[in-house]
């Protein structure tokens, strides 16, 4: 993706580094690490910190599609990895503090699935899906897509990191779900491709990362959380729980999202992405709950807590984001940092 605009001292310093090559930068990455550590220590909340979330997003981006103009050798530069770990530590601490976990007594895959279904059902933040279905204006639908585009244009990728860290039943389950996310061998049916089609239907740019500058820290945090869980093997329980929570809160909301776009007269081409998820995720949630999350806990009982953590964190961050977005809409303002040009 293209370089976004920096939002504070850490991202300014980071982007300057990334634009130069990685040779002979050990001193500078060390200085940036100190700066990042200070920023993590002094910020009110890492989850909401514009500068830190943007820096983290770009550090992760080096492992996905890369940043246009950044030397590809930066990806495994030890100085940068150390900076990322510095921010991740604070981010993980903040996420763990933000959630409450259910009792850790589930013993088999059926009971793990049932606890996860319970968590997902209890998710009682403000209902974005009901608002989109009934009230959202066309401008708000476009903002809704812009927030989602940060993840949905690379939908499924963060969870795919987990595949080589799993074995047996949970691995087969993860692969079965991901194969469906990636279109079952049909590139035009990949969920990320369906989402791009929806964006084009609302005359939005479907280039990955195009709207990073427009979205607030929380939107980036929601995707950064998945990257952190997916890229750190020790957090494999959390990425599995995260996927289960996503699948379990998808079918019905997507039906309502589709209704919102139909209400504004958009056709099946635009609602395809949402319609597909109504059906797909009713399958995925069953596999993710029992075979993936439950199967992982049966194989590695010590991961139960992290499975719940990943699920609870996914629900908590998305509830915060919905609340923030809808609070802006309620006062008639944009939920974006940079509002879309009127009528564009």
């Amino acid at each position, binding site marked *: 993706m293209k370089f976004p605009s920096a939002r504070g001292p850490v991202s300014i310093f980071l982007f300057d580094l990334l634009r130069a090559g990685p040779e002979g930068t050990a001193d500078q990455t060390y200085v940036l690490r100190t700066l990042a550590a200070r920023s993590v220590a002094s910020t009110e909340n890492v989850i909401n910190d514009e500068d830190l979330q943007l820096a983290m997003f770009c550090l992760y981006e080096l492992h996905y599609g890369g940043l246009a103009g950044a030397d590809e050798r930066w990806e495994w530069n030890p100085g940068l990895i150390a900076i990322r770990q510095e921010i991740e530590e604070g981010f993980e601490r903040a996420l763990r503090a933000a959630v409450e976990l259910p009792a850790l007594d589930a013993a088999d895959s*059926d009971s793990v699935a049932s606890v996860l279904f319970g968590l997902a059902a209890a998710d009682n933040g403000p209902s974005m899906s009901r608002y989109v279905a009934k009230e959202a204006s066309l401008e708000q639908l476009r903002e809704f897509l812009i927030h989602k585009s940060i993840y949905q244009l690379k939908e499924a990728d963060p969870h795919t990191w987990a595949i080589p860290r799993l074995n047996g039943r949970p691995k087969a389950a993860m692969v079965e779900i991901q194969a469906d996310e990636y279109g079952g061998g049909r590139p035009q049916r990949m969920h990320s491709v369906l989402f791009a089609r929806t964006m084009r239907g609302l005359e939005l740019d479907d280039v990955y990362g195009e709207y990073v500058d427009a979205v607030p820290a929380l939107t980036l945090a929601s995707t950064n959380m998945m990257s952190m869980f997916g890229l750190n093997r020790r957090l494999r329980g959390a990425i599995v729980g995260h996927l289960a929570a996503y699948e379990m809160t998808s079918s019905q909301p997507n039906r309502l999202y589709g209704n919102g776009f139909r209400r504004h007269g958009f056709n099946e081409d635009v609602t395809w992405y949402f319609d597909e998820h109504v059906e*797909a995720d009713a399958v995925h949630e*069953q596999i993710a709950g029992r075979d993936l999350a439950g199967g992982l806990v049966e194989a590695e009982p010590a991961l139960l807590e992290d499975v719940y953590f990943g699920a609870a964190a996914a629900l908590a961050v998305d509830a915060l984001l919905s609340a923030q977005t809808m609070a802006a809409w309620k006062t008639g303002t944009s939920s974006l940092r940079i509002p879309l040009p009127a009528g564009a």
Partner: protein
Amino acid sequence: MSDELSPLHRDREPKDAIVVCPDGPLLVRGDFEIVSTTGEKLPRQRRTVALCRCGASGIKPYCDGTHKLIGFRTDFPDRKAT
């Protein structure tokens, strides 16, 4: 690998299976067609499907998660049954 199946087990492992999901759909995985009473194939988008058994889905015969909203409960088969 630890869960490698012995030849004996391999024969017993069903190629096609219907997973009876507690309080939810029937998950069908394997080699099968979904057809109308006259044998015509119904639209099908994926290999593994969830068939609604609560009766409330808006996209029958497939499940759309509505079973969770109507409090659909299944007590049979017993989860501990062998």
